[in-house]
């Protein structure tokens, strides 16, 4: 397997509760992988580790990007002077958290409870996502220099592409708060994609969607994975969706990986059945 993400023996505790215990797995490149498990299994905690919102106590998380391999935990727990980050960034990561750095390496995410910029328009949401890609500073922007205009044009084009892809083009000037729930979910994915990631992490993308919207989402995600150089990791409770679109499944229970495999393997895995349905003997 040619993995994009490798999680090695990562553990994290919250006040004595072991949320993740020696989690060890990797996910393949350019495929859809799913992370499933009962409530409280540690799926979202793992997500937060991968996307830089939590720092695992030990273990390593490697992102095998197109150009370089980066160790994500090291970026979150830098020493006073990390070679990868430079002194200013490492100082900042130490005091204020450096989770934004992970996005620069190519990890983008959505949230279980939608976190859009509600009082900004749809297009503005997508432009904010390209903040770090827009060239130029205050002055080049104020005086409309050529470099700035060009980079803004590119940003608008990319935003329009993803709006089109997620069928949101008619709403580009609407406030995000005015969209329906399903549209907001799609906009959040579009916004994450605007940061041009290599690994897209979706936290329950189908939660709260009706069957029609779920079917649309499944179609869009499959198309997305097929046509762009993108690996997707998703958490989902809708098993039909998971079995339909993912090629690779990781099952977590009580903070431990209990099974890894293809959908058919997972469906017959005794431990998975036990975790979901309970064992015969209690």
């Amino acid at each position: 397997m040619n993995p994009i993400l490798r999680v090695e023996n990562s553990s994290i505790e919250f006040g004595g509760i072991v949320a993740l215990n020696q989690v060890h797995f990797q996910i393949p490149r350019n495929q859809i992988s799913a992370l499933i498990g009962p409530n409280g299994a540690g799926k979202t905690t793992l997500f937060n580790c991968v996307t830089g919102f939590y720092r695992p106590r030990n273990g390593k998380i490697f992102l095998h990007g197109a150009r370089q391999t980066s160790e994500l935990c090291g970026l979150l727990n830098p020493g006073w002077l990390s070679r990868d980050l430079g002194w200013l960034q490492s100082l900042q990561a130490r005091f204020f958290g450096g989770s934004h750095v992970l996005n620069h390496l190519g990890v983008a995410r959505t949230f279980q409870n939608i976190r859009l910029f509600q009082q900004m328009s749809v297009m503005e949401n997508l432009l904010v996502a390209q903040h770090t890609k827009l060239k130029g500073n205050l002055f080049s922007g104020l005086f409309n220099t050529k470099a700035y205009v060009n980079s803004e044009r590119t940003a608008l084009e990319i935003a329009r592409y993803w709006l089109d892809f997620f069928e949101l083009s008619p709403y580009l000037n609407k406030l995000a708060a005015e969209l329906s729930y399903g549209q907001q979910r799609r906009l959040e994915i579009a916004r994450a994609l605007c940061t041009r990631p290599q690994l897209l992490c979706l936290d329950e993308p189908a939660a709260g969607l009706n069957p029609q919207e779920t079917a649309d989402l499944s179609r869009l995600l499959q198309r997305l994975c097929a046509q762009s150089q993108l690996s997707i990791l998703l958490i989902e409770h809708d098993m039909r969706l998971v079995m339909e679109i993912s090629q690779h499944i990781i099952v977590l229970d009580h903070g431990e990986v209990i099974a890894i495999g293809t959908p058919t393997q997972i469906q017959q895995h005794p431990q998975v059945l036990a975790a979901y349905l309970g064992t015969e003997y209690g």
Partner: protein
Amino acid sequence: MHLKHALKDALLVGVLALLLFLPMTGIALAENYSFNARLHVPFLLAGMVMLGRFIFSYALHTYHSRQWVKRLIHREDRPRFIPWVRPQRRWILLILFIFGLVLPFTLSNYGLNTAILALIYVLLGLGLNIVVGLAGLLDLGFVAFYAVGAYTFALGGQYFGLGFWGAIPVAAAIAALCGVLLGFPVLRLHGDYLAIVTLGFGEIIRLILTNWIEVTGGPNGVQVPTLQIFGFEFTRIAKAGGVPIHEYLGVAYSTAYRYWFLYLVLFLVVCAMIFILNRLRSLPIGRAWEALREDEIACRSLGINPVTVKLSAFSMGAMVGGVAGVFFAAQQGFINPTSFTFFESALILAIVVLGGMGSTLGVVLAAIVLTLLPEVLREFSQYRIVLFGGLMVLMMVWRPRGFISLQRRQFEGAA
């Protein structure tokens, strides 16, 4: 049914009113320091309250009043635009600009002073609007930057011979630095906690200015250098070794020249600031400020560094406040710490909230209204604050998003 309900309501309110009015109006002080019962007054008042309440609650059940209440309570979530200030209508802006340029020559000295004060508050409102309206960081100590600007000009002139023109960039830089200094410790704070720390910061600056007597002159204040342009002065007799401008031009001396000069420079600065702020709104940094206001965690997930975004908002806002301070010092000619109390911060915040968070035009209008209102209402100066409060309450009921809501940039659809 409605009648019964209304009667019950009125009775309850009447009892409450009686309880309230009995001690307040029912006892009159007699000449020999004894008390006389004056019971007809509280009963009369309570009766009036009962009648009013009865009419009110009975009327509320009619169809029209229900519709009215519904309209009142319904919060407008959609931004409302004032149609006649669309950016396409450039000529309106041009007329306003020319009007602003001609205005000082038609005003008396008193009017000029008020106009300058209004423009200073416009500038302050615009500065705070960046911090509160756009970046959503509640700052209750904005007056600190105003004070820093004013004192930079005054003390810079006293110790380093800093002139008016030099003071503008220097004050902007020092105020921005103060903004960053304030910004660092509060990076991890939100909402109420942030408000309290900024409030403290405002007071710290004022207390330093009051108590560091050897440098700032303390409560005695400090003299501000005279205004100059190309070496010409606006005083009757040259003070700083230049030539008084009326002598050079061969016209009679008038105090108005100084105000004209100050007004025109300030007006141009305000126009430039409005242009820059409007532009910033559609630039990456302006969008990042707004995004930070909406959701900081989402910002992080998109690779935006919240630290730099917050600090830039603080320093930009502080910079504008510092420049406003220089003009304030120049207008007053003499400053002391009593001009920079918490009340000023509250006033500036009121301007931003009344004008509509984040809306440039709204802030400009609110600043002008809130400076002119006390001047117009000089006779009832005791009730000024009551009026302010009333205005705020009315605004929050009818237009919770301020006079004018933010106008968003419109994008063209996919080609």
